[in-house]
């Protein structure tokens, strides 16, 4: 269907935003909106850990102090939420998933990130490796606030932001792609913003 012209609609183009940084259907906002399906969990740091489970050999678990003892990176990226907003040049600090997977033997090709509060999201393992994903614990130079997923969230900026699981507690490595929370509720299994993969069938 060719688009219907909305009589009198002019819209608000952003001349200050390079169009090659804004995926189709998105608009740029200076705000950082919050979208969560339930109450915000508050896990004390002394009870927090991050685990690799599923198809892995041995125990891979980091306490908060152990995670913060790993080498961290500062990451400046654009993020894109499926609810249409994009935010440019966000600055995070976190540990690369490559660092966590270093030396881990697995035959898995997919991962399910799991979080406090029961949230899950699925990703191909190759989208988490090669410098594309982090466990982030700081945003804008400050500790990551609970409503934005603190103490730590997954950061996978090349996919829609629901893949960047808030309150993340680990990755379950699996042989087959298993739909997570939103992926079971109408949202796309993969979620590439540049191909506008918002919903089932996109």
């Amino acid at each position, binding site marked *: 269907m060719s*688009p219907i012209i909305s009589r009198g609609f002019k*819209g608000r183009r952003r001349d200050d935003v390079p169009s090659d940084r804004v995926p189709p259907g998105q608009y740029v906002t200076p705000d950082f909106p919050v979208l969560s*399906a339930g109450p915000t969990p508050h896990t004390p740091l002394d009870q927090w850990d991050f685990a690799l489970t599923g198809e892995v050999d041995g125990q891979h678990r980091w306490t908060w102090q152990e995670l913060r003892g790993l080498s961290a990176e500062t990451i400046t990226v654009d993020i894109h939420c499926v609810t249409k907003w994009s935010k440019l040049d966000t600055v995070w600090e976190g540990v690369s998933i490559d660092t966590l997977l270093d030396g881990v033997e697995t035959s898995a090709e997919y991962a399910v990130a799991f979080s406090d509060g029961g949230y899950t999201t699925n990703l191909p393992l190759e989208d988490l490796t090669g410098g594309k994903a982090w466990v982030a614990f700081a945003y804008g130079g400050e500790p990551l606030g609970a409503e934005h997923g603190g103490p730590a969230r997954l950061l996978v900026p090349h996919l829609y932001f629901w893949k960047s699981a808030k309150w993340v507690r680990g990755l379950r490595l699996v042989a087959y792609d298993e739909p997570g929370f939103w992926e079971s509720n109408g949202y796309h299994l993969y979620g590439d913003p540049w191909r506008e993969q918002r919903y089932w069938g996109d």
Partner: protein
Amino acid sequence: MARAAVLGRLNWRAADVVGVVPETARVKTIQFDVPDWPGHLPGQHVDVRLTAEDGYQAQRSYSIASAPDGTRVELTVERLDDGEVSPYLTDELRTGDQIELRGPVGGYFVWEPERGGPLLLVAGGSGVVPLMAMLRRRAAAGSDVPAVLLFSSRAWDDVIYRDELERLNANGLLVVHTLTRAQPDGWTGYARRVDREMLAEVAPEDAQVFVCGPTPFVEAVASALVELGHEPARIKTERFGATGGRDG
């Protein structure tokens, strides 16, 4: 195209405006007829797409206000003065216009009478919209599932769906208003922001809870409910971003 059909792609559909109804000074309901509308669940939303003459497009998401009713779909939109899409929807659209819709979307923040209750709905401002779809469905189905709507508005004239809520306030539904900024003379109801004490007074035990409103409102309500002992997994939330709309 056959493959797209099998996968159930949500295609853009032409939606005919068949009515525009003012709700409050800043809020209007836009009634659409959407041929081939597949139906929806109360609580779901749609994406709206506007296209300018030069091809520029803007998309936003809005909750569906109406209960499932054939090809009829209603959106209730709050005008955000600095918004890109909502001023067009509330000020420019009139009967006979056409825009594009895609949906319905979302399978989590939904309720139907078969899911039972008791139900606790907590709304801040235009966060009432998806909750109203649930209450309209409940009424249309003749359901007597016990339900409480706790609805926070700034003032009596800002109460969206005020008259209809008064009519629905029976058959096991209790509508409780709180007016946070100004109250009419003789007001005996709540006159403050929703807090733990208020929730304790109105919330049914073991309720299925739906909370919708601006982010600080939802954060406060959901946290207070958890403190009161409500099971986090039974509390479903939907928040507007700082940019308004459902989230934009």
